[in-house]
């Protein structure tokens, strides 16, 4: 059982606030959470098995913070953050990381932007110093910005343009989110990306990047005390930003209409049906345990071979070759619970969708069995143990949680909360949230029109 116990640490350098220190009783790491004087939060997840660290900085800014007309800007800036500072010219940081044998990358979502390096632990301070430098020191010229804009357009082609499935997902988000900034793709709309400029990027950077808008998460071979000392020597020197804009995004109205989309493309060889329901995230759940009930609901409905959708549609009724469900609790705004299915040859998408609806209706009507619920809990709680095997998984897990409205304490207690969910709560979640009026259904079909066939 996971239970929190405060670890007493001595010789902590002060001037930083010790927020929490917790340890899972299953032998998980003692996790430390500090706040520097300039508002930067530091989370340390010790793991001394290998002499390496995963150093991540998470900024509380993402695509949802873009103003209308500038879609893709948060992600574009993420790319441009590798283009050098007043102190370190373009490429120097990457060259230094490569010399260490390190890995580096970055990623952007609606809610946050994160950068990371995986390096030998002896090099931790170096990467912290570079990262602290580019928190405020970024210098951009058109000579580096313009080729990079081509790179993000190619990235868009690679992720979306070349994939009809990804295009359908983009369209479904646009239809699901009526008012929230999540309605546009994180990578941006192409016609807007083409006009993103150096000035756009710098203005966005100056508005959002600073120590009091960031969380540093370090997993791996370092003690909390040492990490804190290094953080103070590096990030601690960066001045707090006094003019951080508030993040008040438009929220979703009560949905009233089931929406259906069809995307037809000559390249589609395997038709599929997808559905997304607008549901609460961990952050937006109004009742305790609601988000965890949705975690379990999605798993029972569509997590793997034992799930309802798979057993009913793929194994028993043989309507589908694949079917499943997922839920993403990590979101500052309302999030999605998704379902999908690919029909067997000879089965129509409408027949398959009908089958999916029947599975949902039965779950709403009869609820879940004790054995199903038990298995789902075992799986989700085991995932938390398996995650401990990877410093990078742990750093990502905590970072994601902290960026989406949760605390270190919430992460520590998540298995307890999963354990506490009852069969009735799962059934209630299904009844309340799997209401078709809250959903968008997407059909991906082959375009068989003469023009389409000519084009392909």
């Amino acid at each position, binding site marked *: 059982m996971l239970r929190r116990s405060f670890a007493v640490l001595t010789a902590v350098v002060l001037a930083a606030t010790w927020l929490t220190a917790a340890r899972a009783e*299953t*032998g998980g790491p003692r996790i430390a959470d500090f706040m520097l004087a300039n508002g930067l939060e530091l989370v340390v997840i010790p*793991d*001394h*098995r*290998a*002499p*390496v660290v995963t150093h991540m900085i998470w900024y509380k800014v993402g695509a949802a913070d873009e103003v209308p007309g500038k879609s893709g800007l948060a992600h574009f800036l993420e790319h441009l953050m590798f283009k050098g500072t007043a102190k370190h010219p373009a*490429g120097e940081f*990457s060259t230094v990381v*490569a*010399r*260490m*044998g*390190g*890995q580096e990358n970055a990623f952007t979502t609606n809610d946050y932007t994160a950068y990371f390096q*995986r*390096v*030998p*632990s002896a090099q931790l301070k170096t990467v912290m110093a570079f990262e602290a430098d580019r928190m405020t020191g970024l210098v951009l010229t058109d000579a580096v910005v313009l*080729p*990079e*804009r*081509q*790179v*993000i*357009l*190619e990235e868009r*082609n*690679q992720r979306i*343009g*070349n*994939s009809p499935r990804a295009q359908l997902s983009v369209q479904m988000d646009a239809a699901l989110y009526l008012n929230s900034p999540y309605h546009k793709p994180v990578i941006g709309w192409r016609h807007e990306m083409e006009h993103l400029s150096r000035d756009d990027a710098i203005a966005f950077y100056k508005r959002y990047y600073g120590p009091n808008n960031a969380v540093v998460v370090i997993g*791996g071979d370092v003690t909390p005390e040492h990490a804190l000392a290094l953080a103070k020597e590096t990030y601690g020197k960066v001045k707090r930003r006094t003019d951080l804009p508030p993040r008040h995004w438009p929220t979703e109205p009560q949905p009233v209409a089931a929406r259906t989309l069809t995307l037809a493309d000559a*390249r*589609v*060889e*395997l038709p599929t049906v997808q559905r997304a329901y607008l549901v609460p995230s961990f952050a937006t759940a109004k009742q305790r345990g609601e988000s965890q009930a949705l975690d379990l609901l999605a798993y029972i409905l569509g997590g*793997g*071979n*034992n799930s309802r959708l798979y057993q009913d549609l*793929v*194994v028993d009724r*043989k309507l589908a*070759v*694949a079917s499943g469900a997922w839920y993403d609790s990590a979101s500052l705004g309302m999030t999605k619970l998704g379902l999908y299915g690919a029909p*067997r*040859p000879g089965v129509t998408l409408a027949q398959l969708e009908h089958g999916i609806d029947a599975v949902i209706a039965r779950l709403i009507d009869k609820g879940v069995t004790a054995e199903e619920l*038990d*298995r789902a809990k*075992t*799986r989700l*709680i085991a*995932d938390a*143990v*398996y995650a401990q*095997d*990877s410093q990078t998984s742990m750093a990502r897990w905590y970072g994601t949680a902290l960026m989406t409205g949760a605390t270190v304490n919430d992460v520590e207690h998540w298995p307890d909360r999963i354990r506490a969910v009852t069969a009735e709560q799962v059934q209630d979640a299904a009844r309340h949230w799997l209401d078709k009026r809250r959903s968008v259904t997407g059909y991906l079909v082959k375009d068989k029109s003469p023009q389409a066939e000519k*084009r*392909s």
Partner: protein
Amino acid sequence: MKRLAFSLAFAALAFLAGAPGASAMQIERIVSPSGIKAWLVREHAVPLVTLNYAFHGGTSQDAADKAGTANLAADLLDEGAGDLDSKTYHERLGRHAIELNFRVGRDYLRGSLRTLDEHRDEAFDLLGLALSKPRFDIDAVERVRGQVLASLKREITDPRDLASRRWWHTAFPDHPYGRERRGSLETLPRVAVDDLRDYARRVFARDGLTVSIVGDVNAETAGKLIDRAFAALPAHGDLKPVAQASPAGLGRRIVINLDVPQAVVAFGGQGIARSDPDFMAAYVVNHILGGGSMTSRLYREVREKRGLAYGVSDNLVWFRRAAVVIGGTATRADRTGDALKIIEHEIRRMAEQGPTPEELAAAKSYLKGAYALTLDTSGKIAAQLTEMQLDNLGVDYVQRRTGMIDGVSIADAKRVAKRLYGGGLLVTVAGRPKGLTSGPIRD
């Protein structure tokens, strides 16, 4: 296909042991009560056990007209065994969150198991049942076959799959290495249940087995667990020989017409055997040209300077009977020709001039440091131990690796660059690349 991750990693106990504050990774060679050899790393920090193993005999055992047999058999291993039908078997796994994975490559069937400590006996028993008594019930066979066919069908219009498959098919015509590992829409329907049984009988044997285990277990416990999984297997398998091969089609470019906004490119040529004395030099040189960091020549020229692609890289790939160097990129149709010209130019330049001493030093530094990152989870360690055994690197390779990298001189690098990149390229492109057609590649 991509073996970069583990190939960066051939060990270095010396490096790990020498790093301050870190616990040294100790590899123990153990033998189970029934006589199965394995490598063990004890790991106390996390309450789980990870097993990684491989059997000789991957898709290269498939008959040409029944390509996809090995993959289908592997996909069916968790679909019922012994007295347990598919549903019961999956419920047994699910009840204790036991993870089993099976994956077929050209030379090997690789598998892994992950379990919480408290359920390890059950986990290893279930694996043992899957390997020694797979059921191949017709219902499960048809269901899984349908899933594989669906994925093959979907990929008919995926430019990445098209470019890659055409590359392998052209490079290794009439050789099992040239075939897609899951078979094709034509061959997979021909695979009968008897073919699956025959594959299992020929491959799942103790003489073709390599085992690695990582967890909070001593040699005695590890040996007992290993026997639960493997002792019931027959002593000897029955593998078909696989012919030695070299990539064909070098000097050719093949364009596959497909209406997509971005053309996908695969390029490559003759590689280098893992056992070749020049392997490490080749590894270092390839890292400089197109290895997976953000500092390679290809990355700099194609992406950083010109913004022609989101990604570009190449890798050494080696099998038991062939070796290639293969890379890829994806770029807009009107600039595909430019991107290819740059790639071809950089490859030629590397062949003719080799790397600079500065590049060589930087690459060595990277490759030495990067090793530790490939050994920071139990799963990664177990997988590395298996690859080290399959490649006959020896348990002391970990101590020797750093010295081998340091031993690559600039003269070695230049000589090997010529050998590796001087033999011409086979290029396949899927998309609508402006101005590019199939035919010989000219300078």
